[in-house]
């Protein structure tokens, strides 16, 4: 091995040997947590440019943080969307329902009713408020933590749970990992599980809408971790080149499983700042502030619908719980991070705002929590009638071979015969016919 002796010869000088920088998160298990280095500007201090402004006018906002709810729980500044109390209460209820749903499904997974689940705790404001700001016909290309959008669009909870249980009523025929929903009628694209592939697809859908002279726009979603994927940059390039009517969201919840956002480039700049390089509009938003998320999404949606092109929105938030039921964050991060997170809890912040307005009370909130919990329980019971994972109430064997192609080719027909023959030998108790 050659010993590093410093640089001699024509490159000259006494330069130290090169050193690879590997990002390190600020805190590891057991560490005390101090977020005082995070720049959290006061609510209401961020200018709101006109929706038809030049993209470059938004670029200072890519390095700022749009906030509406202040320390006194009041909505302040130019980004205040001035939602009426009834809308605020619906927003709060959908966020609470999303949280209650997550709690129940998480417990169901621990009880062995399904193989897998992913909560969005701490991120409810982002998907729910974004859904409120979009038109119903707008097409969402979600990642895996946007269940709040489906819930806010009133997709039946029973259908979500049937999918999670992979049971015989699962509209996706038990083919997908739990939570990988698809709901065309609710403008919710089939979730892939491969990361960021949906981003160029969202742009393609938006381009198609523009080609057809439609009025609907698309909404694409990734986490900060998968903004590293080539697909993310393909999407931004195409969105910029064709001025596609799309809102591109990056949910920066600080973690990609165990990898801190530093591994996606967060040590250098913000994720919203990616917009600057592509010359498109960009906004950076307090993701735990439902009103800021609503206002930013509405701004971007209006802009896209007016033919003024794409906007990249970074939702700055914190993944309060594990990546999934298969993950244990105590193995890689400090448990104090959640407690110390300076942007608070999105549900509590909206609740306090409504109370400050005199439009809500602790009693009403408690009653609402009980109602949404009862709603989830009842949907769960209903879904369990259709079976839980691994209890035989699955779809017929032949469905395994359907939908690979529009029509069954000869080789799949032969393989289906094999599968059904095996079924009769391996599980004779199911009888002839029923499961074919």
């Amino acid at each position: 091995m050659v010993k590093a002796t410093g640089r001699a010869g024509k490159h000259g000088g006494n330069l130290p040997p090169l050193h690879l920088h590997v990002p390190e998160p600020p805190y590891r298990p057991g560490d005390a947590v101090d977020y005082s280095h995070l720049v959290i500007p006061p609510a209401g201090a961020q200018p709101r440019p006109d929706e038809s402004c030049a993209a470059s006018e938004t670029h200072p906002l890519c390095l700022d943080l749009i906030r509406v709810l202040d320390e006194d729980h009041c909505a302040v500044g130019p980004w205040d969307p001035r939602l009426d109390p009834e809308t605020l209460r619906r927003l709060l209820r959908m966020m609470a329902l999303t949280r209650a749903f997550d709690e129940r499904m998480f417990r169901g997974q621990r009880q062995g009713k399904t193989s897998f689940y992913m909560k969005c705790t701490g991120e409810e404001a982002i998907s729910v408020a974004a859904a409120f700001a979009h038109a119903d016909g707008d097409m969402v290309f979600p990642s895996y933590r946007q269940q709040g959008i489906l819930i806010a669009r009133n997709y039946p909870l029973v259908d979500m749970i049937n999918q999670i249980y992979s049971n015989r009523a699962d509209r996706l025929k038990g083919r997908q990992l739990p939570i990988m929903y698809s709901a065309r009628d609710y403008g919710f694209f089939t979730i892939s599980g491969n990361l960021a592939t949906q981003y160029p697809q969202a742009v393609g859908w938006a381009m198609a809408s523009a080609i057809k002279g439609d009025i609907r726009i698309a909404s694409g979603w990734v986490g900060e971790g998968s903004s590293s994927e080539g697909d993310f940059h393909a999407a931004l390039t195409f969105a910029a080149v064709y001025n596609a009517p799309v809102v591109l969201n990056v949910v920066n919840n600080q973690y990609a499983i165990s990898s801190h956002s530093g591994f996606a480039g967060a040590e250098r700049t913000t994720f919203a700042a990616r917009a600057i390089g592509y010359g498109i509009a960009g906004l950076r938003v307090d993701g735990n502030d439902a009103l800021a998320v609503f206002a930013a999404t509405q701004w971007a949606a209006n802009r896209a619908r007016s033919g003024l092109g794409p906007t990249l929105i970074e939702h700055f938030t914190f993944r309060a719980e594990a990546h999934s039921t298969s993950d244990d964050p105590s193995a890689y991060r400090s448990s104090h991070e959640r407690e110390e997170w300076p942007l608070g809890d999105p549900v509590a912040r909206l609740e306090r705002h409504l109370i400050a307005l005199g439009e809500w009370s602790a009693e009403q909130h408690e009653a609402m929590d009980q109602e949404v919990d009862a709603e989830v329980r009842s949907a769960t019971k209903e879904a369990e009638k259709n079976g839980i994972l691994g209890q035989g109430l699955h779809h017929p064997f032949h469905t395994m071979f359907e939908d690979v192609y529009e029509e069954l080719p000869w080789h799949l027909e032969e393989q289906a015969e094999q599968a059904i023959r095996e079924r009769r030998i391996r599980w004779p108790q199911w009888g002839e016919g029923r499961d074919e």
Partner: protein
Amino acid sequence: MSAEEGPVSLNDAPTRSLTMIEAINEALGIMLERDNDVVIFGEDVGYFGGVFRATAGLQAKFGKTRVFDTPINECGIIGVAVGMGAYGLRPVPEIQFADYIYPGFDQLVSEAARLRYRSAGEFIAPITVRAPFGGGIFGGQTHSQSPEAIFTHVAGLKTVIPSTPHDAKGLLIAAIEDNDPVIFLEPKRIYNGPFDGYYDRPARPWSAHPDSAVPEGYYAIPLGKARIVREGEALTVLAYGTMVHVAEAVLAEKGVDAEIIDLRTLVPLDIETVEKSVQKTGKCLIIHEATRTSGFGGELSALVQERCFYHLEAPIERVTGFDTPYPHSLEWAYFPGPVRIGEAVDRLLAAG
């Protein structure tokens, strides 16, 4: 025109002699005309009309939002095609060379191929990805590859390869109308004329070939149906694309009464035609230009063995490209030409 697979419509349409590239251009124009949801895009396909001229004149006729250029980003080209398909369009993206398709591979394999399945039919990807492939044009290792086997390994994709102007038009129309994603690989060595495998002989134009007679107007050739190029008794040749013509020339030169089958669609494969032929001749020669190991010839060989074993009178022969990158200066040493095919034919004829 093949005997059994006439045009679906316009049986009596007048024909003209077209090159394969002209036939492809005509198919694209017809589909743009017939279906407002068809859109065509790719690198240099718009104003310029494509580096091989496949889309020449189409933007001028159908406008910039139906036929347009794209950034140099195959992941984006196929990714936006998937989104457009989800919207309800029928995208026909071009990948300039099949060798460039790999950045878009995830969007094909994990997305386009599985949308219908994973969404239980809610979303489909009615996309036709056109890409010139194959060597023999001094394209070096990044303009000569034959990656068809990779796509045949993916559940949910269809892989189609024409070998004549007549078939190129009818198969491309069928591919565009198909509701599943289709990889349409165009043998670029024969875009402008058939090829007998002798690089040092004068090039022949398509106009001298009977299958350059292309009917006017719309016709579709169903996917999944092979074409019997020549009936024969001595042995069965399974080939596609450029190699159909090379096989024809070599076997004619050797005076062998071979049955030559142009597969046309690799997936779904016309297994019936293959079986019937091998059961008749008892001998099977598989020819492709792609590399040998895990090539589509391996799959064909296994299928023939499984289904025709008791009819076989000789080991199945595979003639393929070598397992190396496609070389530039030694292109004709690499190409599975007359010598390699001739040797395999001799071994088959000597057996049994």
